[in-house]
C-alpha cells in the first residue's frame, strides 16, 4: 500500500519524479519572487533569477520601467547575462557576441554578411517574460501574457498586514540564505502548522497568543494573524525590540504563506520575507530578508535599550536546556525559533525514508497542512 502523508504519498516528498512535475507545473507556472525593488533601481541595472525551469532576467530601461526576458541567447541558447550587473545600452552574449538592446531586440550579429546568408534579426529578439512589483518585491512570470499580478495576489492584498514595505528600508545585515535538508513542502507545512507554535516554540514565540490565531486559505494562499499576549500587548511601545512600523491601533503578527513557498512574517516592529526554493527532492533553499522602521541608529538603540528590561524578565529560551542540550550549538537550545524549525524539518525528512514511517492523526491546528497538500495536488492534476 502506498504510504501517505495525509493527502500526499510519501514519494511526493522524496522522489525526483514529483520534484520534476512540481518544477514544471507549479514553479514554472506562477509568479516567482525575484528580489526587492531596490535590487533593480537604476536604468541599465539587471538581475537574473531562476524561476522553476526558467532563468529570467529583469532589466530597467531608461524610462525606469522594468523589462523581463528569458535569459537565453536566441542563437545557441547560452545564458546571456550573469546574476547581477549593470549594462549601458546593450546586452552581449559571451559565446558569439550576439548583442541585444534593453528592449530585447537583436541589434548586432558579428560578421553578419560573411557568416549568414541573410538573417532576419527582427525575428530573433529575446523572448519576453512578465515582471511586476508587489509589496516591494520583484516578481517574474515566464509567460509574457501572464496578466495582472493582482489576479494572483489581489484577493489577499489587504490581508497580509497593514505594513507599507515600500516605505521601510531593508535591514541588510539580516539578509541570509541557507539550505535545509528537507523537501520544500515539509518547510511550508512547518510554516503553516499552527499546532506546533505553542510547543516547538514554547520558549521563542510565546509573546503571541497562538490560541487566538486567525488563519485559513484564500485561494492558494495561506493567511495567518495572531494577537500579542496581554503581557506583551500592554504598553507595547516599551517592549518592542525595534521601532514600530505599523499604526498604534494595530498589533499582532501576520505570517502568511503565499503560493508557492512565498512566506511573509510581519509584526509590530518589522517586515520579513521567507522565500522557499526547491533545489532537489530533499533539499531546499530559504532566503530571508527584512525591512525595519525608517529610523536612525540612535532610535534603534534607544528602543532596544528601553525594551531590554521586558525581555530579560519575559525571557526567550531554548526548547531543551541544561543536560538535554547536546552541545553548545544545539539548535534546540538556541532560543532561536528558525533553528528549531530547521531541526524539526530535517528530522521529519529523514524519517520519511524509513519503511516504518506512518503519519499520525492531524490536529485542528494542522488543518492548513492538509489544505496546502490539496492545493499542490490541484496544481498537479492531469499531469499523470
Amino acid at each position, binding site marked *: 500500500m502506498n504510504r501517505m502523508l495525509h493527502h500526499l504519498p510519501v514519494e511526493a516528498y522524496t522522489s525526483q519524479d514529483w520534484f520534476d512535475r512540481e518544477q514544471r507545473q507549479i514553479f514554472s507556472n506562477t509568479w516567482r519572487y525575484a528580489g526587492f525593488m531596490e535590487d533593480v533601481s537604476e536604468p541599465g541595472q539587471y538581475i537574473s533569477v531562476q524561476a522553476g525551469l526558467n532563468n529570467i532576467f529583469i532589466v530597467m530601461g*531608461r*524610462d*525606469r520601467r*522594468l523589462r523581463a526576458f528569458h535569459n537565453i541567447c536566441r542563437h545557441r541558447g547560452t545564458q546571456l547575462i550573469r546574476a547581477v550587473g549593470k549594462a549601458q545600452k546593450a546586452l552581449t552574449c559571451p559565446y558569439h557576441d550576439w548583442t541585444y538592446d534593453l528592449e530585447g531586440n537583436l541589434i548586432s550579429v558579428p560578421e553578419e554578411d560573411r557568416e549568414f546568408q541573410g538573417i532576419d534579426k527582427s525575428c530573433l529578439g529575446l523572448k519576453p517574460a512578465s515582471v511586476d512589483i508587489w509589496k516591494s518585491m520583484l516578481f517574474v512570470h515566464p509567460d509574457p501574457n501572464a496578466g495582472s499580478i493582482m489576479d494572483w495576489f*489581489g484577493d489577499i492584498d489587504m490581508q497580509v498586514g497593514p505594513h507599507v514595505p*515600500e516605505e521601510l528600508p531593508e535591514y541588510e545585515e539580516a539578509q541570509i540564505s541557507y539550505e535545509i535538508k528537507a523537501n520544500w513542502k515539509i518547510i511550508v507545512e512547518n510554516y503553516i502548522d499552527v499546532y506546533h507554535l505553542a510547543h516547538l516554540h514554547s520558549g521563542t514565540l510565546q509573546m503571541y497568543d497562538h490560541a487566538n490565531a486567525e488563519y485559513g486559505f484564500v485561494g492558494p494562499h495561506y493567511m495567518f494573524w495572531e494577537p500579542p499576549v496581554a503581557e506583551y500587548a500592554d504598553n507595547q511601545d516599551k517592549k518592542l525590540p525595534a521601532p514600530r512600523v505599523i499604526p498604534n491601533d494595530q498589533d499582532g503578527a501576520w505570517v502568511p504563506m503565499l503560493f508557492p513557498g512565498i512566506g511573509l512574517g510581519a509584526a509590530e516592529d518589522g517586515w520579513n520575507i521567507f522565500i522557499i526554493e526547491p533545489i532537489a527532492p530533499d533539499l531546499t533553499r530559504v532566503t530571508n530578508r527584512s525591512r525595519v522602521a525608517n529610523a536612525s541608529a540612535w532610535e534603534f538603540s534607544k528602543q532596544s535599550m528601553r525594551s531590554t528590561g521586558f525581555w530579560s524578565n519575559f525571557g526567550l529560551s531554548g526548547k531543551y536546556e541544561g543536560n538535554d542540550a547536546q552541545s553548545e550549538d544545539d539548535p534546540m537550545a538556541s532560543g532561536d525559533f528558525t533553528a528549531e524549525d530547521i531541526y524539526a524539518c530535517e528530522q521529519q525528512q529523514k524519517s520519511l525514508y524509513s519503511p516504518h514511517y506512518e503519519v499520525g492523526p492531524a490536529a485542528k491546528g494542522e488543518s492548513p497542512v492538509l489544505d496546502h497538500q490539496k492545493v499542490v495536488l490541484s496544481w498537479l492534476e492531469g499531469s499523470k
Partner: protein
Amino acid sequence: MSRDFFPLTVLDTKDEIGGLAKTVMFDVPEDLAEKFAWRAGQHLSLRVQLKEGEVRRSYSISSSPVSGDPLRITVKRVNDGLVSNYINDNVAKGDVIDVMPPFGGFCLDTAQNFRRTHYFFGAGSGITPLFSMLHSVMCNEPHSVAYLAYGNKNAESILFKDALSKISDDFGRRVGVKHVLSAPSMWSGFKYWRKGIVDEGAIKALIEEHPPYAQDAQYYVCGPGGMNKAVKVALMSLDVPQDRIHMENYGGADEIDDTVKGIKATAEITLNGEQQNVSIGAGQTVLEAVRLAGLRPPFSCQSGVCGACRANLTVGTVHMRARMALEDNDIKKGRVLTCQSVPTSEALSISYDG
C-alpha cells in the same frame, strides 16, 4: 454606435477659471443611458444653430464614467471661437442641445484588477479628457497609481484646480498632481511643481521622481499645438515603447499635411445599407462630395480630431490631411476620416456602415 444627434437637456452649468471656461452638465434620460454611456477620454459632438448657420463641434467629456458624476463637457473660450464663446455666453440650465453620443479612440478603460502606472501629460484645456481618465483610475483601479504633469500659464488659468486638489487629498499615496506654470504670478501663494512647460525636462523629472511602481506603465498626452509631438519624442527618447503612448491633439490640428492635392474620382458610397456613386472633384474631400450629393453622412469637427465621419475604404487610395482620430491600427484596417480624405486613385469604394 449611433452617429445621430439627440436633444439633451442641460442639467446645470458652472463657470470655470473666472468665466473663461464653462462646464455644461447634461441630463441623460433613462432610455438614452446606454447610447450615451462613455469611456474616459471620449468626446461629445454638439450641433448648434447660430445666426451664421448650423455648426458642429466636439468637446472632450471631463467627467469620469465610473465616478457617478453626470455627463459633462468643459469648454474653454477660444479667441473669436464661434461655438466656444456661444456656449460660454449663452448656454444655461434647462436648455436643450443636440448632442451626438460619445465617441473617440483616445480612451482609458479601467478595471478593478488592473494594476498600472498611468502618466498623464496635459496643458490648458487638454486636461478635460485626462481629468476623466485620472478620476476613473482613482475610482475604479484601486491597485493602480497615476501621475499628472499639467501645464498652465498661471494659477488662475488652471482648470479643475480644486477638483484636482481634492483628488490628491482623497487618494493620497496613489496619485501625484504636478502643476507646471509658464508665467506664475509673483503674488500668488499657489504652490506649483516647476516653472516652464511640460517638456522633456518636466517629463524626465516626473518619471525620475515617480518611477513606475506597477510595471504596466501607460502614458497619455493631451495638449495644444506642438506639445503632443514634443512629449512623444521625449518619451521615445527614454525608450518608452510606442504602443504605451496614447495621445490626442487639442485646440486644433497641428500637423496638416496638404502636400497632396486630391484627384477627380468616382466613389461608390455605402451609407445606411444603401449604395450610391458620388463624383469627387479635384481637391474636394470625400465628405464634402458626399454631402453635396445630398447624402447625410455622420460628421462633426471637420478637422480630423473627433472621428465621427470615419468610414472604411475597401477600394482605391486616399490621402488624409490629418488623422488624429485614428490609431495606426485603424488605418491598417482601412479606416479613413472622410472629412480629411482626398482621392489619390480614380475609383474608390467607401462604406460608412459597420
